[in-house]
């Protein structure tokens, strides 16, 4: 608030100064024609010559008006007018004049620095304006205000502009000066009878032209004048005393006069007449006052000072005293008041003008008003105020509203000058306003009173109310004044404690519209520019569009085509408009653009059509990872998994964070090779409903041969950009890949995109990619962090090799498990040789054969060089020393095998190293993606059972399911043998063919018996030894088959811990209804051992029938073999205990009759009655067998002997195995032996 009060204080001072300036005593000047011709030599008239010196400072003149005490006047401004111009022009003339003044006003510099698109610039401008002493008044407003006041000078209801003195100027060259002076006075009196009165102060000036006549002579003439008119009444002024300095040239004269010369009206009046500023003398008088020396100017100043101090002030004192005395005697005092009250009505109203009384110079009202004005001039404001108040009552009772308004206006000003109560001043001015309104005919005065009121309100720090006053002043259809007032009101909104920018904008827009209507396009354009600065964020679409449209039109009018072009450019996004309007805008824009750009490419416009998505771009480039078509779209995870497999760890060593050189890491740079293409995906959108053609679309790049600091606009020698073109239909969006390639190593920066719209307008947009801010930013480095696919800064390495992999005859669709063949061509498209190639594919679904180097232009087949690949774990590597030269091609066959169903992506990665390794790029990987539609086929499932008969036999319960809904599959004889087992189908079909037919959505089951082949080897779970029945039928090369088996092995899930795995392959074929051709394939599965809870398996082999001669030998020894089979995945240790049946008394079925040991014995007895009395058996020999480390899938055999003492049938079960896993401290498990029967007969019979 302190600032505001200071400002208000300053405003008040300004106002006071202005008022003092325009209410100073006015003097009539009359001069002889010769005097004017002297002045003309300097390009001036006598009046204009005097004007700059009329503001007298520090005169320090004592004044005593009516009070007892004297006071001193420090500053006094007098006004000098040529007598011929002292009348008021007509209203129409005045309006024309104002229009002319403002239309010719040069305003270019005023809002310099304000940009229509930036609110900041506007705020800066307004702040600086408020800071300045003269408030927010724009210069043309001040001009308007001055001119407006000037046009209202010499009003009939005011006496303020009546001359109080006459200055008579005669030339010294005349021999008889005195008589000439008298004649001039007489002539002046006659010419200006209306303003002349006998009491007018007359002052005589003898003007001497130094170039014309002697100074002494002139002095004598002056003496003569002094004798004739009085000593103090005469003065001499000499002119044109400057001697041209031929040697040094004339120093320039400060221009004091041009500001004081106001434009004259065509009808004359308003205190001004036309001056021929070019100088009548024509010699060196090109600048104003060029012939005036310092002495000349001093003589003028001393004349004016003497005149004011010695003549004018005393004269005015006298007049004031005279009028005061006269008025006191007629109007003051009780008697006079009564008299006035009673007899006033009887006054003669014959002088009425327009229904209101007019007051002649002899009337008392006129005199009071004159007294007020005189005392106002003499700065005796109290006297002035009381006079105005006194007379205003009279005027009010006479209903002389115009006079009343005038006096109230002056009363208000008095209070302002006295720094009295602001409220009182406002009341006075308010009543002046309403009085003028009641008068109703002279609205110019109404406006003036409101202008004064608004100034007073601003000075009292109430800008809002001032705005109200200004708005009230818009009372007729004068657009110019309305515009000026609205503009001023707009500025006042900024003065509020909290600046109201939106109100400012609205009023500015209204002002601009009025300016435009009255043809003042300069000011209109300015106003619109300020509005647009407020609306720089383009939030309000209709305002934005309308303002740009208006400003565009205005700037076209003032021939500011660049500005117009900018506006029409904004109109190109007018999405609310119908198509025809949009087309109109576009046409207009293109017309302007043709004129401004004139085909010059360097003059780019930040076009918004087509709309470029500058925040989102996708950069396609090849660093150590290259992508073929379609591969970009795959997820990063896919590639990182492949990369892990394909990149040999050795090459990555030294790249961990400990060893890496962090200081030189440049994570804001992308790497690429020279002469390789970089693609940037940019989205272009047409927001309009008209079709547009976009040509010459290319990237705007900078290139630096050295480092990041040396970027320069790229030239065709360094960088090659590809140009695209396209047509955008209404509201269409398109994604375009723009390409650039760098020819030499260095640095590349992509700045933005450029295009040619409709063949005429060149547009450009810079990319603005968002990202988190970087913390430490070096010189030239980007300020934001971006992921690689959005980085636009590249380090270009020297030429590095690069390959292109093309699959030919890649199937579109296949069945799961089908083996399809296609071709692959690998070409080194780079400019350097490469070696050490490695290839992998996802799930090993691609199997690569041997490569054949294609000979260029050679048709001789046997000259082909073939390269074997080595497959280890799905990674196919070519020999290290094999080099693929630039341009060389090689081909190979690829077999595709997958068991996945659906749209399957076959991703592959090709690794290679440049022959000449570069420190920043030791290797490269090409990523390829192929897609194939895989239909479901046969699915195998099932379980593996251990044969109860032998540990060397397994039974595979195989379920074959046809998952396809349409096709019938024929499953071939499955597998004949693998490395360890012979496989036989147990229940073959009755027709004895090996083919099993499976209809759509059906399932069939078969059992396969697997018999171990002797003791050689053990089952290792691999498929390497697998022999397919139709191996030759499939026609696969051995390497392919190997890889196929390998991939099968990898594709099946891992067996559960402790379980057993048994691989099986089956081949199938079908006649597809979809593709209408025959398909065949292989399906495989790993059987898992069911029953993980029973990892140990124990069988006993024994003779089926024993005949023993118990007569010869009482003991029959039966040899048995107990086999222990480890079906788990871990090694096992344990103990086999053979319990002694003798001690254990376990003579099965030989229980003596009637022992009665339990209810169960009843049945036993009944079943085994023929065994009654049979003695028990017992084990003999080694009864405890210990095993250590029985390997998985291993069988241990133990020889045991059973002793029988009598013939009979024996059930032997007294043996058990105690075991545990050897590598873990598990609790002991026990496996009871399965009982078996020994049937022993006596040989004696």
């Amino acid at each position, binding site marked *: 608030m302190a600032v505001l009060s200071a400002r208000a204080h300053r405003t008040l001072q300004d106002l006071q100064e202005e008022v003092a300036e325009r209410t100073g005593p006015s003097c009539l000047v009359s001069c002889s024609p010769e005097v004017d011709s002297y002045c003309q030599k300097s390009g001036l008239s006598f009046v204009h010559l005097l004007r700059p010196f009329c503001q007298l400072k520090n005169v320090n003149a004592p004044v005593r008006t009516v009070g007892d005490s004297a006071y001193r006047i420090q500053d006094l401004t007098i006004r000098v007018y040529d007598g011929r111009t002292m009348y008021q022009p007509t209203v129409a003339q005045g309006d024309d004049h104002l229009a002319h003044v403002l239309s010719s006003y040069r305003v270019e510099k005023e809002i310099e620095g304000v940009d229509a698109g930036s609110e900041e610039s506007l705020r800066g401008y307004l702040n600086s304006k408020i800071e300045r002493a003269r408030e927010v008044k724009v210069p043309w407003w001040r001009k308007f205000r001055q001119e407006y006041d000037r046009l209202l000078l010499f009003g009939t209801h005011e006496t303020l502009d009546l001359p109080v003195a006459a200055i008579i100027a005669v030339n010294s060259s005349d021999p008889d000066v005195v008589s000439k002076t008298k004649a001039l006075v007489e002539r002046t009196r006659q010419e200006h009878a209306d303003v002349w009165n006998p009491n007018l102060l007359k002052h005589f000036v003898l003007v001497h032209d130094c170039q014309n006549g002697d100074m002494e002579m002139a002095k004598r003439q002056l003496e003569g004048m002094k004798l004739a008119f009085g000593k103090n009444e005469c003065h001499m002024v000499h002119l044109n005393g400057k001697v041209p300095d031929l040697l040094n040239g004339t120093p320039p004269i400060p221009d004091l006069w041009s500001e004081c010369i106001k434009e004259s009206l065509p009808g004359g009046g308003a205190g001004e007449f036309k001056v021929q500023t070019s100088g009548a003398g024509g010699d060196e008088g090109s600048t104003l006052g060029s012939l005036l020396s310092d002495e000349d100017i001093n003589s003028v100043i001393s004349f004016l000072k003497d005149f004011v101090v010695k003549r004018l002030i005393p004269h005015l004192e006298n007049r004031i005293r005279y009028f005061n005395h006269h008025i006191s005697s007629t109007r003051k005092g009780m008697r006079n008041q009564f008299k006035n009250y009673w007899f006033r009505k009887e006054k003669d109203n014959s002088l009425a003008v327009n229904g209101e009384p007019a007051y002649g110079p002899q009337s008392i009202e006129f005199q009071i008003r004159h007294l007020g004005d005189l005392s106002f001039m003499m700065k005796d404001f109290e006297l002035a105020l009381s006079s105005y108040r006194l007379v205003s009552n009279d005027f009010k009772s006479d209903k002389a509203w115009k006079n009343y308004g005038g006096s109230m206006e002056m009363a208000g000003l008095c209070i302002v000058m006295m720094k009295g109560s602001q409220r009182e001043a406002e009341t006075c001015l308010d009543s002046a306003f309403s009085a003028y309104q009641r008068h109703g005919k002279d609205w110019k005065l109404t406006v003036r009173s409101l202008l004064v009121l608004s100034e007073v309100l601003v000075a009292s720090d109430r800008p809002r109310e001032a705005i109200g006053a200004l708005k009230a002043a818009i009372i007729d259809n004068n657009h110019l004044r309305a515009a000026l007032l609205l503009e001023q009101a707009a500025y006042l*909104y900024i003065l509020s404690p*909290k600046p*109201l*920018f*939106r*109100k400012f*904008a*609205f*009023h500015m*827009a209204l002002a601009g519209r009025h300016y435009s209507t009255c043809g003042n396009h300069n000011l209109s354009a300015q106003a619109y520019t300020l509005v647009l600065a407020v609306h720089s*964020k383009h*939030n*309000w*679409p*209709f*305002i934005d*569009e*309308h303002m740009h449209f208006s400003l565009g039109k205005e700037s076209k009018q003032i021939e500011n085509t660049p500005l117009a072009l900018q506006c029409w450019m904004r109109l190109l996004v007018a999405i*609310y408009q119908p198509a025809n309007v949009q087309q109109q805008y576009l046409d207009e824009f293109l017309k302007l653009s043709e004129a401004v750009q004139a085909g010059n490419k360097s003059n780019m416009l930040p076009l918004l059509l087509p709309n470029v998505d500058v925040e989102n771009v996708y950069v396609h480039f090849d660093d150590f990872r290259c992508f073929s078509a379609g591969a970009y779209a795959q997820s990063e995870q896919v590639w990182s998994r492949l990369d892990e497999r394909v990149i040999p760890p050795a090459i990555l060593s030294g790249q961990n964070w400990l060893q890496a050189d962090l200081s030189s890491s440049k994570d804001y740079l992308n790497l690429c090779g020279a002469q390789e293409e970089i693609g940037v995906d940019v989205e272009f959108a047409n927001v309009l409903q008209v079709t547009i053609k976009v040509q010459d679309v290319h990237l705007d790049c900078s290139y630096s041969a050295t480092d990041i600091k040396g970027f320069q606009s790229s030239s065709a020698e360094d960088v090659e950009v590809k140009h695209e073109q396209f047509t955008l239909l209404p509201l269409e969006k398109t994604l375009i890949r723009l390409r650039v390639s760098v020819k030499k190593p260095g640095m590349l920066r992509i700045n933005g995109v450029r295009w040619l719209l409709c063949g005429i307008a060149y547009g450009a947009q810079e990319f603005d990619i968002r990202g988190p801010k970087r913390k430490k930013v070096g010189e030239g480095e980007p300020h934001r962090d971006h992921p690689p696919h959005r980085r636009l800064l590249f380090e270009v390495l020297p030429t590095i090799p690069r390959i292109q992999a093309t699959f030919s005859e890649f199937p579109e669709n296949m069945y799961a498990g089908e083996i399809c063949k296609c071709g692959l061509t690998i070409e080194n498209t780079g400019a350097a040789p490469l070696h050490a190639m490695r290839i992998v594919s996802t799930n090993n679904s691609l199997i690569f054969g041997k490569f054949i180097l294609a000979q260029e232009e050679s048709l001789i087949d046997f000259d082909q060089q073939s390269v074997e690949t080595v497959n280890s774990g799905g990674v196919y590597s070519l020999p290290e020393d094999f080099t693929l030269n630039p341009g060389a091609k090689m081909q190979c066959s690829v077999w595709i095998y997958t068991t996945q169903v659906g749209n399957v992506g076959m991703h592959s990665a090709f690794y290679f190293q440049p022959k000449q390794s570069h420190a920043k790029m030791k290797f490269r990987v090409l990523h390829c993606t192929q897609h194939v539609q895989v239909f479901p086929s046969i699915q195998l499932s099932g379980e593996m059972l251990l044969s109860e008969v032998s540990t060397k036999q397994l039974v595979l319960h195989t379920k074959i399911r046809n998952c396809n809904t349409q096709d019938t599959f024929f499953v071939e004889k499955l597998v004949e043998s693998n490395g360890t087992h012979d496989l036989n189908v147990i229940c073959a079909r009755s027709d004895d063919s090996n083919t099993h037919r499976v209809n759509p959505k059906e399932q069939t089951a078969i059992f396969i018996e697997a018999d171990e082949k002797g003791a050689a080897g053990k089952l290792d779970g691999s498929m390497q030894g697998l022999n397919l029945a139709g191996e030759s039928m499939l026609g696969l090369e051995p390497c392919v088959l190997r890889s196929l088996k390998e991939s099968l092995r990898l594709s099946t899930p891992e067996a559960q811990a402790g379980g057993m795995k048994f691989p099986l392959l089956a081949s199938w074929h079908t006649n597809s209804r979809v593709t209408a051709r025959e398909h065949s394939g292989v399906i495989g599965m790993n059987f898992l051992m069911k029953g993980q809870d029973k990892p140990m398996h124990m069988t006993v082999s024994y003779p089926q029938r024993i005949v023993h001669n118990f007569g010869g030998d009482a003991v029959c020894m039966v040899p048995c073999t107990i086999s222990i089979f480890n079906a788990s995945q871990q090694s096992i240790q344990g103990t086999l205990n053979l319990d002694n049946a003798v001690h254990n008394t376990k003579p099965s079925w030989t229980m003596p009759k009637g022992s009665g040991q339990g209810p169960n014995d009843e049945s036993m007895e009944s079943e085994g009655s023929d065994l009654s009395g049979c003695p028990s058996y017992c084990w003999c020999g080694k009864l405890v067998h210990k095993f250590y480390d029985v390997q998985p899938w291993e069988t241990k055999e133990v020889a045991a002997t059973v002793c029988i003492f009598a013939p009979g049938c024996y059930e032997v079960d007294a043996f058990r195995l105690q075991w545990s896993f050897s590598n873990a401290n598990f609790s002991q498990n026990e496996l009871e032996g399965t009982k078996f029967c020994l049937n022993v007969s006596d040989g004696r019979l």
Partner: protein
Amino acid sequence: MPRDSTTLTFVIVGEETPIYECEIKAGAKREETVNYLHEFVLHASLDNIDEAIWTTQSCYLKQVDRYYDLTVSAYATSSLVKFLLLHDSKNDDGIRNFFHDIHEYYIKIMLNPFHTPTTKIKSKPFDEKVKLLAQKYLL
């Protein structure tokens, strides 16, 4: 000055941006000049609203601005999102109820976690609801 018997423009302003605009007029055909004038009046009234917000406890700010025969009534939510209604006839109670009901719908829009004060409201149901409320209270 374009004159309609019932000119109604409803705008929701978040921060500086109009996030929802709706022209409600009874039987009058759209005039080209009206749009920007309405926007200007509404935009300029934001200055008054900024002042009016701090002078009252209630959300409804009543009439905040006039331009000739166009009146702007306003309502400010507690997050200082403003509802503005440009109208040329007096209907204080109706406008108050209209704003109050709109506020409830706006809160539902705001429940969307992705809605920021400057997100444009493009919800069709919201638009329909606004028009329905306008029919109910204003026309």
